[in-house]
């Protein structure tokens, strides 16, 4: 029988788990070690922030929080590969990408601390806010990409989704329409192996998640999401392609959620300690540190000093968050419509009287 179609999914890795080069054709940006050091520093900052946020939740100073422990390389690669006027549509733990784009830790804390003002962040005003309904953000990115295409703007939309979210209709719809309309969209499936308690294998019978883009006609790639260099190289490639009108791409970043799903979760209920221990051996910071130190681009002394600097920065951001007073009660009304209808004017007045 003749073959109607075939496909294969390539796997990209430059740095292995120990920080040794898996291949020698390093992309240009990775030959600039100062840039790699800077991104490593940002990963460290995110990790210190993440631990602090969990501590805040445990002491009653923050609501439910979704940590990003283990995802730092994937998110920093996404954030650093994008241009300011590109659009990012995230789910809710892509902090490294967002900090790189100008979102402040105090704003993130404000959101998880129960205040809508966190979504009015200092990152690009066209970036979408945190998106709890799983997968829906992917179509916002596709709609953005369609707007860019209609207006002939050389801009790209990037969306992120989890391994669990890759089962959702909205995600698959976004891939499909990206292929159908040749939209400048890069979809990144952050496969951290667990959708709360459901393992990756229970989401789909597909061998890779990257291949979900094949049926939509997209170019697809699986990447070691714990390898900053590979992930950044993949993003650079995908964004450049999309920006030049060559269509969208689906990237699966293979990583591991080293933390609970959120602070309301207890991952010990559904996965083994050994699995988590094994995953720690592949985590992204350790290998980047080893690589940079082998290049004499980073030292233990610099690491200690940088961590102290991060702690001071994070503490200042936490203080700014804690000192932010709650919005007045009428704030719940004021952005329901561009202009408040009479019914809401009356209800607002009632709420103000009640205080």
């Amino acid at each position: 029988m003749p073959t109607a179609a075939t496909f294969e999914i390539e796997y990209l890795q430059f740095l292995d788990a120990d920080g040794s080069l898996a291949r020698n054709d390093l992309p240009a940006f990775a030959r600039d070690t100062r840039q790699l050091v800077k991104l490593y520093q940002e990963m460290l900052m995110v990790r210190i922030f993440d631990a602090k946020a969990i501590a805040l939740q445990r002491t009653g100073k923050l609501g439910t929080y979704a940590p990003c422990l283990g995802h730092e390389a994937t998110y920093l690669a996404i954030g650093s590969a994008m241009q300011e006027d590109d659009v990012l549509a995230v789910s809710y733990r892509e902090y490294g990408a967002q900090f790189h784009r100008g979102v402040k830790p105090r704003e993130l804390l404000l959101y998880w601390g129960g205040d809508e003002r966190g979504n009015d962040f200092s990152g690009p005003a066209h970036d979408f806010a945190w998106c709890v309904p799983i997968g829906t953000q992917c179509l916002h990115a596709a709609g953005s990409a369609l707007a860019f295409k209609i207006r002939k703007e050389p801009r790209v939309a990037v969306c992120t989704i989890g391994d669990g979210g890759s089962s959702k209709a909205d995600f698959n719809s976004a891939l499909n329409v990206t292929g159908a309309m040749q939209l400048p969209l890069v979809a990144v499936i952050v496969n951290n192996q667990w959708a709360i308690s459901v393992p990756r294998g229970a989401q789909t019978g597909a061998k890779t998640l990257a291949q979900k883009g094949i049926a939509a006609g997209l170019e697809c790639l699986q990447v070691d999401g714990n390898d900053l260099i590979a992930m950044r190289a993949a993003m650079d490639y995908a964004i450049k392609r999309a920006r030049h009108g060559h269509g969208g791409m689906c990237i699966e970043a293979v990583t591991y959620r080293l933390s609970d799903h959120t602070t309301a979760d207890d991952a010990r209920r559904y996965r083994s300690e050994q699995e988590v221990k094994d995953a720690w051996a592949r985590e992204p910071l350790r290998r980047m540190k080893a690589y940079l130190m082998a290049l004499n681009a980073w030292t233990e002394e610099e690491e200690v000093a940088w961590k102290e600097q991060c702690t001071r920065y994070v503490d200042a951001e936490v203080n700014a968050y804690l000192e932010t007073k709650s919005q007045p009660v009428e704030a719940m009304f004021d952005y329901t419509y561009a202009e408040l209808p009479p019914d809401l004017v009356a209800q607002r007045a009632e709420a103000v009287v009640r205080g």
Partner: protein
Amino acid sequence: MAQITLIEAVTQALAWEMAHDPSVVVLGEDVGVNGGVFRATLGLIDRFGAERVIDTPLDETTIAGLTVGLAAQGMKPVAEAQFEGFIYGMLEQIICHAARLRNRTRGRMSVPAVWRAPWGGGIRAPEHHSEANEAIFTNVPGLRVVLPSSPARAYGLLLASIRDPDPVIFFEPKRIYRQYKEEVPDDGEALPLDVCFVLRDGSDVTLVTWGAQVKETLEAADALAAEGVRAEVIDVATLKPLDFDTIHESVRKTGRCVIVHEAPRTAGFGAEIAARLAEHAMYDLVAPVERVTGYDTHIPLFRLEMKYLPSVERIVAAARRTLAAS
């Protein structure tokens, strides 16, 4: 000046706004070359091109999500749900995002978009093509819900909906798409989105309705007039936010109110109007408020659908009961 039908008024409004605002785009299933299954977008692709009159893949989720993304990035999308019974696949995008993006970003982002859908029963359509589901949307903060019942109101209200900075659910009563023609100047004049339309003055009883039921309600008013009863007829047209003042003012005058809608009765939008009358107009009323509505059943397949929809006789009978009560 040309006489046009309600659906031609929809097309005329879309064309006007697309000609005057380059950020307006139309998207949906079959809206391009085919001009929409009811022909609401007829000719638009020839005039404005496939980049602005967009045939999407056959997926309501796609249409709704693209619409949110387009609107958030500065476009003014007018999305078409091919039938109101297919809009459920759009609900998560409409409720979780379109309706609340402005609020949850404190005004940083917003969704100035319109979702159009042919609405309601009475055209002998297949299953899931005849729903009156406006009450699902009137309970959602951040949305506007608009339901015109004449060519002129379809034109003016659609223009206003596209220009409005907030998301609008725009239901088109398909039973009266081609019921009659009237002169609708193509002058780009919008109608207000926050007032009811008093279609007939009267002093004895207030008949409140919207959508295709305006037809039966006006006929009921004629029948009542033959008996010497002067019925005031109000087309709510802009359900959310509701202009209750116009209804209240009428009931102050008549003391009697019959609410007519084809959606199921329980928690239908008539319940909201009745509740407000109970709150604000109890002492103006001389008779209990009557509701003439669809039953709390699914609208039946078309052999029985006209027995489900409110009839002139039911409306007249309800009005007579309010008159007999005092």
